[in-house]
């Protein structure tokens, strides 16, 4: 628990970037970490670039991930990868829709949660906290779909890490 984990989630307004970072921050909070989350609102819902920073660990000071220090960058839209790549640290991991097959990409509305599933494989947060956070941040009628999306994303990340022989 000594390290601060830095995650940046990016995409375009309307894609659910801020909802995804709310879920991540809530999951980390439920897991007992100190958590800070920050982004810029306002113009974001007009379809422009949006990014949100989530940091968790034993103690977090600044709510913003310094450039070049993100452990994971999650991008919901391929065109936004290059715009945000500079936040990644030297050993940082990029997670983008590129990772997913057609089946996992089927529901565009839950792409944010699908990619959180992929992200979950990188972070020390137990599955129960992720699911509790999904339930707490989404309307009940969306729970089942998003649980499935989360599992698909998690499986896609696992498949990539251990490719079939």
């Amino acid at each position: 628990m000594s390290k601060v984990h830095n995650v940046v989630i990016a995409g375009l307004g309307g894609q659910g970037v801020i909802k995804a970072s709310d879920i991540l921050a809530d999951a980390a909070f439920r897991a007992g970490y100190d958590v800070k989350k920050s982004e810029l609102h306002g113009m974001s819902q007009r379809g422009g670039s949006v990014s949100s920073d989530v940091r968790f660990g034993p103690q977090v000071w600044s709510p913003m991930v310094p450039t070049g220090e993100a452990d994971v960058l999650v991008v919901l839209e391929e065109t936004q990868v290059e715009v945000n790549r500079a936040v990644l640290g030297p050993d940082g991991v990029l997670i983008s829709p590129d990772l997913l097959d057609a089946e996992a990409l089927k529901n565009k509305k839950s792409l944010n949660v699908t990619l959180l599933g992929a992200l979950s494989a990188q972070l020390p947060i137990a599955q129960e906290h992720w699911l509790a956070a999904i339930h707490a941040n989404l309307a009940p009628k969306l729970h089942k779909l998003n649980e499935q999306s989360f599992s698909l994303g998690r499986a896609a990340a696992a498949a990539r890490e251990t490719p079939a022989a």
Partner: protein
Amino acid sequence: MSDAPQLLSGDEAIALAALHAGVRLGTGYPGTPSTEILETFDRLGGRAQWSPNEKVALEVGLGAAFGGARTLVTMKHVGVNVAADPLFTAAYTDLAAGLVLVSADDPGMASSQNEQDNRHYARAASVPMLEPMDSQEAYDFTLLAFELSERWHLPVLLRVTTRVCHAKTIVWPQNGFAAGSPVAPEPGFKRDIPARVMIPAYAKPAHRRLRQKLAEIAAWNNAEGPNRVFAGGPQLGLIATGIAAMHAREAAPEASLLTIGLTYPLPLETIRAFAQGCERLLVLEEGDPVLLDAVRAAGIPAEGKPEQYRFGELNVARVRRILAGDQSAEPVPPKGKPPELCQGCSHRGVFEVLRDLNCIVAGDIGCYTLGVLPPFQAMDTCVCMGASIGVGLGLRHVLPEEEARRVVSVIGDSTFVHSGITGLAEMVYNPPATGHVVMILDNGTTAMTGQQEHPGTGRTLSHDPTGRIHFEDLARAMGVQNVHLVDSQAPEGTLAALLKDLLARSETSLVVTRQPCVLAAPKIRFYEKAAADRSATAPAPVVDD
């Protein structure tokens, strides 16, 4: 209510603290990054209202505080300019209950027209200012602000910035004041003419009383103010406020750090004592060198940040550069996709017409300011809320006739109510020789800040039906010569033909284009249906026979 920890934005923390403080009324005008405070207060069960503008919001709040009710007033930084008139004299008065004015500043201009530093207002208006650095302090300082406001009977400014308002951090609520703190007064009127009627005879002693109050608050701030020392080595001492304190702690964990929570009036003796233990002393603050100047004026030698760091937000990387004295050019982050008018937005058609007619467009503040960007580029000025009408009139007065006839003022519905009505009065009273054309782009909501209600929608902050201002009726009553409505059903070419006609006349004209915001339309239908259902099931009125 539970005292368990919660992950809250600074805005949410302020709302929760207001509820726990027993605030009876919250007023304000929407504006990023302040909007969520009153929305959250309403959702938690508090009584919250959007006012037509910030001046009215503060005046209503002041009346409530004179009447013995704890009151929270919220606005963005530029809103305080609008509310400045009541603020400066409210400071002279004696309040019967706490009044806290939240100023939500936007260094870096994420969604604002300037990055003015509202710390200047504390000194200019002689009003105490608290500056939290995270959501916990936003919660704690809101409670403290009410305590200070009631102890000294004056308004207190709570200044927050984008990264405090919108960052989520963990809050341990205490659900109310600590033991020994003031109990919320009961509303009731107690006449106190010399303390509330600011004619010169009463204002002169009131000004002296105010300075005495500030001297007492400064002494309190030195003795027990909300200022913290993070112990470190003697080589480097940092003094920081607000979010800069967080960046400082991360960038220089080895340094001694003094964070100041009550930044006006400053705890200069606390600062002097801290400075004496440091070999190098540096002041870290976003924006203008407000704290640095005050520290130096008190004879305490300190370094500030190089001029390039006055602009924009600070972050950990920039603080590291400041500590290293690095004045080299900073890396420019890659440009993302700029915002644009939504597909299907009703403003699109309007700006196409204005572009095609080669109009000179005096614009205003809202989503429709995006009409300045390609493919429209149909906006020539944008300064502040309501300025479109006055600026348009000024252009009409002085431009050669051919150019004057191309000038149109464009304003949104919420902005019109905020500060466009006085502009219309000016047009009727001092009409230019070529007349003028004002357009209200009425999309039925305060769209840019996240679809808040206003007096032109006929619904309250909680979306319940209430009185509604009808723009066309208002304009006719004020004496505007031509008043037209172009709604969403109008055939193509209607607006262009109408504008051509009106621009050719030397008369005063108002054109309202009415079509709901595409993002808000489903919600507006829902609110209307809910209101209709409720009135259908309401019990029949009892009639005496």
